[in-house]
């Protein structure tokens, strides 16, 4: 049966509390951060850092950077662009998967609880192991495939065709930054990660299926026509709810399902 509880070694214990505020701090906030180090054989724990918000920038990522630079250098997390474009800083903040660099601290009313993306194995602290999700992405061959001889200039697309990728509002499937917030929020993915592709990968599969320049639509649909790879999606919509870029993976998935039905009728 599916497991609904954490194994013993994964139960999160209470950790240390570090007060990094000053005597005259007025603007304070508590951050409860998931910590786990593969090298010490103990359970994960939630460490609490109390910060003076006047010491750091407005986003949750700023708080994490402040902790790492000034309070506890052992804290481990990924980040790169700090402007919502690289997808590295995806984590669960206040119960929702999102990008730490785009999440304003003041949007969280109580203490800020920060844990890694759910369901993925943890490398250390807030760093999840995404190898499997990346491999699933690789398996859909996310690049342009054509049989016609390559043109001497760029491959042309009409504006309407390009809109299929970019959306009218820039929120089409081509805007995905592969942060995997959606995939790791999907209950279907939690239960069947080995076989279900998950929303992020399916949205990207759709990005290539709907690309008018790509000539491998048939092959791409063939590879997805499977009770698990595609049809494990039960339209629960968590994915669309969690996407920090406001994309709509659930819709991309239903577009793929529509095409599947179309080629059978």
């Amino acid at each position: 049966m599916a497991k609904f509880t954490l194994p013993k070694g994964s139960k999160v214990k209470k950790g240390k509390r570090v007060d990094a505020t000053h005597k005259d701090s007025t603007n304070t906030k508590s951050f409860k951060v998931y910590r786990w180090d593969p090298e010490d054989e103990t359970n994960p724990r939630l460490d609490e850092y109390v910060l003076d918000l006047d010491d750091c920038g407005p986003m949750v990522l700023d708080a994490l950077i402040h902790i790492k630079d000034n309070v506890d250098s052992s804290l481990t997390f990924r980040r790169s662009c700090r402007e919502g474009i690289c997808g590295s800083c995806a984590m669960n903040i206040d119960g929702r998967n999102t990008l730490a660099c785009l999440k304003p601290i003041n949007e969280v009313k109580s203490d800020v609880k920060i844990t890694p993306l759910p369901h993925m194995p943890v490398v250390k602290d807030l760093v999840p192991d995404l190898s499997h999700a990346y491999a699933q992405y690789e398996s859909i061959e996310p690049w342009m495939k054509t049989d016609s001889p390559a043109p001497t200039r760029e491959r042309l697309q009409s504006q309407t065709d390009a809109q299929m990728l970019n959306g009218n509002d820039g929120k089409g499937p081509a805007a995905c930054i592969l942060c995997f917030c959606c995939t790791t929020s999907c209950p279907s993915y939690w239960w069947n990660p080995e076989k279900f592709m998950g929303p992020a990968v399916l949205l990207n599969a759709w990005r290539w299926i709907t690309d008018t320049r790509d000539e491998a639509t048939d092959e791409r649909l063939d590879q997805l026509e499977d009770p698990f790879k595609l049809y494990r999606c039960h339209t629960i919509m968590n994915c669309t709810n969690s996407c920090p870029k406001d994309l709509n993976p659930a819709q991309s998935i239903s577009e793929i399902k529509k095409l599947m039905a179309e080629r059978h009728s």
Partner: protein
Amino acid sequence: MADDQDFRSPLKKAKGLGAAHAGVHHWMAQRITALALIPLVVWLVYSIVDLKGASYAEFMAWTASPINAVLMIFFVIASFYHGVLGAQVVVEDYIKCKCLKMTKLIAHKLFFTALAIATIFSILKIAFTAG
């Protein structure tokens, strides 16, 4: 190095056994039966409410009328089919053990089929003998 170390690449695992090239039929059947069930459920609920307080004989006569018997059989087929498809999804979602999964899938299909046949048989029996 430990014998049980996993040397398969992530890509090998992600590709797994490949696509089954199936699933569309299940998906469409689930939607078509759902569609059929909307008017059928309305009809059934309406009829049952209408039959409130009816005697045994009146109930039998109602079931024996050709329209009611046909709609009833339609309802049984659509709902059982829809039920089997739904139960299959639940089993596939939550049961990890391969042999348990197979057993459950086969068992519940046989069970639902038998139940549907029995129900249809009863309706026909009433239709052909009562009234």
